[in-house]
Each structure stands twice: as C-alpha cells, then as structure tokens.
C-alpha cells in the first residue's frame, strides 16, 4: 500500500472527472427510481443507446461533422438526450405504464415482480437488438481530445474527460433547476413523494411518471454520450454501469436528486482510487463492496430519510 502524493492526486482527479459522468447517469436513474420506485434493469441499456446515438451523430453518419472534431462529440452527447427521451417515452407509453403507476399499486406485491420482469425483458431486447443493429465490434467516438491532456504540475487531466465533466455539471444543474422551480418538476416530485395524495391534488401521476421515465433515460443517455468519447463500448456495455448507477443512487439517498449526483461522483472516486491499493481488475469489486457497506450501514444514504411506522 505505497503510493506517492502525485499518484494519489492523479487518481483523485481522474475519479472526479469519471465520477461526473457517473453522477449524471445517477441523476437519471435517481429520477426514475426515486419517483416510480421501479428497479429498472434496462437503465444501462438506455445508456448504451445514448452512446450509439452520439456515435452515429458524430462519427458514424457524420450528421454533425460540420461542427468539427471538438464541438461535434459534445453536440452529439447533448442530442443523444432527446433521442433516447423519445424512445423512453414510447417504451413507457406502451409497455412500462401497464405495470407501474397508480393502477399497479392496487396489486402490490405481484406488481413489483411484473415491473422487474418487464425491465429485464427490455434489457434483453435492447442488448440483443443492439447486437443485431450495431454489431458486436467495440467502437468509440474518437476526437482529438480523447488522446490529449492538460498538465497541472505532474498531474495529467484527459481533455475529453474534462469537457465531459463540464457538460455533466451543466446538465445536472439544469435538471436540478427544472425539478425545483417549474410546475412540472414540482408535480413530478409530488408524485414521487406520495402518488395517492398527488392524484387527489389533481396531478396526473401516470403522465408525471412518463416524464420521469423519459427524462431519466434521456439524462442517462447524455452521460453515455459523454463517456463514449473516452471509452470504447459495445451493445453489452450497459450492464457494467447498472451497479455503478444503483450504488450511486443508494449512496446519495433514495429520492434525492442532489444525493444521486454526489453519490455518483463518489462512486467514480472510489473506483479510480481503488486502483492505488488493489489490482486494476478488482476496481468493480471495490464498487460492489462499497455498495454493500452503504446498504448495511446507512441504507437511507447521505441525503435520504427512512421512515417506518408500526
């Protein structure tokens, strides 16, 4: 367990940069898990869709080629959001809404199983459909930024990751303002807090859920688009991120959007810092261990609250 201060700072900064993208995808999942209480196994696959959307917009079909190698990938990541938002909207409208929401609450217990199975089914369709459509060869969005870095002292900061850090913080900030300060955002939070009461207050919970679901997968897709510019991916990539996302959301505290952001950031830091002590291959195992520790010792997370009455 010996490493220098430079190694430490290098891992820390890498953790913060990687963690920002994790934070953004956690915000996406946090909106869904927090408001619908649905365990969405397909969340990672929507992330993968975001990666491919950004890829085809920039490199593949070059729709955004005119924007140049610097702005193109960023614009691609941004645009992946609305594209996946639309897909998510359709998926919720025709599939997910039939097993979630106010209607499904009546059949509590058996309802939860239906939701799990449906998202597992979605995950299978997206992964394997992706295999058919996109092929199994790993790809990446190559930009000049991916392979260059800024140097601060002896610490190297990957430029693509720096850019994704800035974008992730901005997007997360916009989402935070949307949820806190707009009518729709407030309705969504009310539906999350107490669906029954929200219905009585005249909020269309089903519509609020649809917005939450679409927004959630859309935001996660933007995070996917950002990651795609500094990491290669293939149709099965999504699942690698599911645990990262759940760990971040639970760490932050169920139902807290701000918590999800900090939770995701912390997971990124843990992942990168673990390489200082443990072998590289075990970095994901470290995430799982941290995840389990959080669940055992503080299941309400950093920003959450638990309430149970007898």
């Amino acid at each position, binding site marked *: 367990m010996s490493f220098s201060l430079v190694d430490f700072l290098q891992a820390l900064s890498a953790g913060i940069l990687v963690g920002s993208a994790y934070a953004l995808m956690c915000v996406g999942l946090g909106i869904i898990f927090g408001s619908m*209480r649905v365990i969405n196994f397909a969340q990672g696959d929507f992330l993968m869709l975001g990666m491919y959307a950004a890829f085809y917009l920039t490199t593949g079909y070059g729709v955004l080629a005119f924007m140049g190698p610097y702005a193109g990938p960023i614009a691609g990541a941004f645009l992946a959001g609305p594209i996946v938002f639309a897909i998510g909207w359709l998926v919720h409208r025709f599939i997910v809404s039939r097993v979630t929401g106010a209607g499904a609450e009546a059949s509590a217990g058996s309802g939860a199983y239906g939701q799990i199975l449906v998202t597992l089914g979605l995950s299978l369709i997206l992964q394997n459909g992706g295999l058919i459509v996109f092929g199994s060869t790993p790809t990446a969005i190559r930009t000049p930024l991916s392979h260059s870095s800024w140097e601060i002292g002896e610490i190297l900061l990957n430029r693509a990751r720096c850019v994704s850090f800035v974008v992730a913080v901005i997007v997360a900030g916009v989402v935070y303002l949307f949820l806190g300060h707009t009518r729709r955002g407030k309705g969504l939070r009310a539906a999350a807090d107490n669906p029954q009461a929200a219905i009585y207050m005249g909020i269309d919970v089903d519509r609020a859920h649809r917005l939450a679901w679409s927004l959630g997968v859309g935001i996660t897709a933007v995070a996917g688009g950002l990651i795609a510019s500094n990491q290669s991916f293939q149709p099965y990539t999504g699942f690698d991120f599911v645990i990262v996302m*759940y760990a971040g959301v639970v760490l932050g505290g169920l139902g807290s959007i701000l918590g999800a952001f900090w939770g995701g950031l912390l997971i990124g830091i843990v992942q990168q810092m673990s390489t200082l002590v443990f072998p590289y291959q075990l970095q994901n195992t470290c995430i799982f261990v941290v995840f389990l520790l959080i669940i055992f010792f503080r299941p309400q997370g950093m920003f959450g609250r638990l309430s149970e009455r*007898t």
Partner: protein
Amino acid sequence: MRSPAETRRQRWAIAAVAAAVLVLSFVLKSAYYELILTQVLLWAVLSLGWNVLCGYGGYSSFGHAVFWGLGAYTVALAMIDLDLTPWVSIPCCAIVGAAAGALIGFPTFRLRGHYFGLAMLAYPLAFLYVFQWLGYQELALPMRRDAPVLYMQFEDPRVYVVLALGLMVVALAISLWVENSRFGMALTAIKQNEPAAEAAGINTWKWKMLALMLSGAMSAVAGGLYVVVLLVLTPDTVFGILASAQALILALFGGVGSLWGPVIGAMVLVPLAEGLNAELGNVLPGIQGVVYGVAIIVIILAAPEGVYWRVLDRLGRNKRPASPAAAPRAPVVPLPHPRAAAHGDLLVLKNIGISFGGLRALDEVELAVPEGGLYGIIGPNGAGKTTLFNVVNGFLAPGSGTIEFAGASIAGLRPSLVCRRGIGRTFQVVRAFARMTVLENVIVGAYVGARDDPAARNMALAALDRVGLSDRADAIAGGLTTRELRLMELARALAPQPRLMLLDETLAGLSHDDLDGILGVIRQIRADGTTVLIIEHTMQAMVNLVDHFTVLDHGRLIAEGNPNDVVRDPRVIEAYLGKKWVERVAATAN
C-alpha cells in the same frame, strides 16, 4: 397449507412428470436434445431454489447466481486441484450453498424490499470479478477416460437426464414439504406482513435464514451438476447477470410461489432460447435474446401473476378445500395456567426512556400492571403510547430502564421471544396476512403455544370461537370489514393463550354498534384470566371499560389512577381532554 388429499395429488403429479421426462429422454434421438433436456431440469432446480426464498418468503433476490456459481466452481476446482469425484463434491455443494446463504443472509437480512434485492445483485458480480482476477477465466474439467463412471463422465447423455431429473424430483419434494409445514406457513406470514409475523411469535430472522440456506443449497447443487454436464465454465456464464435473471424469470414466468411455476418456466423458456439460438443464431446474432425479451414482456402484460396461476384461475380450480369450520369442532382448550386475579404485578416498567434523534419519545415512564387487571393508557396524538407498546413487545429496545414480565426481564428480547413469554399484541392499523384465510391467520398466532399442527388448529378454532368469528373462518382476510379485522387480530393474539394482551387502539374506527360487541369481547378476555393493557382515544368507552388509567403526554407520565378521578385531573384536562369532557363525564356519573 394443503389438505392431505391435495398433497397426495401433488405427489402423484411429481411422479407423473418424472415418468414423462424419462419417457421423453428415451424418445429423443440426438445428444443435443438430451443436453437441452438436462439443462431444462437443472435450471428448474435453480429456479425452485430461488422460489423457496423469494416465492414463499417474498424476498426477491436478483443474485442467485452466487450460489449457482459457487456450486459450479466447487465441483470444478475439487476435480482439477484435488482429483475429487463429482459424486462426492456435488453433495458437498449443498453445504457450500447453505454456508454461503448463512454468510450472505447474516448481514443482508437487515434490509427489506428493493434494498435486499439490490444487495443480492452485488454478490455474484463481486465474485465474478474476483474469480476472473484469480485467473479462472475458463476452466475445463479434465477428461477421465480411465474411470468415466467414477468421475460422472458418461457416454450416454441419458444418464445426465436421469441425474438431473433425480435432482429436480428432490427439489420438488423439498418445496412440497416446505409448503405443507410450519416452515411454509411462517414464510407466507413473513411475505404478507413481517412485523405482524414477528409479533405473533414467529422468529422471522430464523426462518428467513433457513429459507436462504435451503435455497442456496438447492441452487448450488444444481450449479455443481451443471458444470459436470457442460464440462467448461467461465465466471460470466455462472456468476453473470443472465444466470441470476434466469432463476427469477423462470419462476415469475411460470408462476411465482407455486410448486410448478419454476418447472413450467424452465420447460417453456429454456428450449425456446436454445432453439432460437440454434436456428437463427448464425443469421441474426442476438435474435434469441430479442425474442426471449419480447416473450417475457408479452406474458407479463397478459398474465402478470405467471402461467400457473392464470391457468389455475381459468380452470376454476383455485377453490378452497372443503370448509374446515364444518369439521368437528375441538372443545375449547382449558387454559394451561389458571390464574386468580391480583397475584401481584405481572408487568412492571421502571424508568423507561427512549429517544429518536433529538426527540424524547418516552421519558421516565413507570407502570405496574397487576395480574388480571384491565388497564388503559390514554394520551393525545404523539404522546408515545404506541412507542411504549413497541418497547414492551420488543420492536424497539428501550434507551434506559427495565421491563419485567412475570418476574423476569424482557427488555431487548426479539418480539417473537416476547410473544413466546406470553405477551400478545394487536396493532393500531390492523396487520393482517391479507391473502390467508381468517383461520390461517389465527393458526400462525397459535403456533407459539402449540405442540404440533393439529393442536395449533384447535387453539385457533377456540380463539375464533371466543371472539365470535367462527362463521368467518374460511373468509380471505383481505375482504373483511374493520370490525371483523379487529376481531381476527384479537383472536390471533389470543390463540396462544397469552398472559398479557397489548391492544393498540382496538376500538378506533368502529361504529357505535360494533363498539359494544368488541368491548364485550375484551371484558370476556379479562374475565377468562388474561391481563389486558389497552391504548385508546375513545374516552367514553374507556372510562367504563378499564379499572385503571395511565395518562401519557409528550412521552411523560402525567397522571394515573381510577378512571373517573383521572379524567377530572386538571393536568389531564389541560393536556388532552378539553373542558367539555368534564361536563360529559359528570353527566354520565349522575
């Protein structure tokens, strides 16, 4: 719980399915089909293992691959490193699986609901990376042509079918035994309302651990045989998310919590996936996953409870067995310890205090309830009444103070142990096992005091008789009225013949007519020798019911004594009652 005739039918069904599989294995001509059949049987065993914990007990695990994978690696490594035959190592998998279940359950059962499921998801994935890191990317079992039978390497693939079939029959028999025993009843109660199960004397932690260990053992044995059949294994195939998902998909598809659900799921979905892979895998890689996913979604939208339950509903066979209430009634069991009134104090609380964060919920509360008494606790909302009950029956451990029941300290005991000592309780919001019948609800409560199942049944019938609910014994608890639910909960607490009953706002939400009936029942319970401590809001009824009042306000004891005196106490009036009550009580007194 099934009737004996129903159980016999299920045994025949298991035998019939086993015979059909045997015939099928002799009809199939190709080794490939035999292999698929073997896999169907093994996945069914994994799913049956999953079903024990998750179907019966209601704790969904997204990580059963951890047991499957540990079983597979146990057999593979035992053979590669120790030259140990699978004939020995596969039974050992049961021990490995049970031990893993115990180690995992110990911390993980602190969690409920989604958190439990997510934590379970992490275990196999953590193992996946560890086994990769250890360098077990791809293991192949060594071929032992010198002694094929000794090392379970048969020429004839049908032998594997027979082995896997044997395993499945054992798994089905275990499941049937669970369903028909106190074990299954405890798991069902936990699934439907865990706190109520604990308060009714079921040691929920013990049963959940046993379920996870049994479940892990079944899954690990199946994983062990799986690697013998396939000969190669990678961390991804056995610890991967697909293995975990398979366990629950098969059970949910077929019908969760049923004996046949996992088997139906495996028989439909495993060949479907394999067939699609074989037919179309070359042209469209991944097509089997897409079709599999679509099939799952379509089924869930069409029959969310699974194929088995849906078919059962369609056939109209989901009727309850013949009315047990019509069966000859057992005589009311005499109380085991006849009690004369006023034998000194049965329950003594001294200096009880508890805080939640900064809130002092109970502060220096003292209470002594004499044997045979009928005591009431009143106080405004948030006074700490229910908290006091939670401390007495073990849901909460007191921050300070002592609780003595019948001369022995009970502070810090689990609720189920408190119940065993002879304290029954009801809840402010009725906690029924909603999908059980009234009689089954009460039987769960009776187990604590019963030697065996027939005794529990007799005690439950007697308790129903005492509260006057015998005619509703076969009704499903979910459909009862408030009055009936209150009576059922009283019967459940009463069934094991406790020495003390804690009644938490039993009179709340009842109409005037219903009130009189329940008051009569409570008086009769006391007259039969059980001490009663009751929390209430309904002042008028309480003044006439109890012989002693204790008043709580903001966690403190502010007055106690004779009800008529207490309600005239100015401190009580100030804290809670308001002036008009003085006039009313005065009016009724005159």
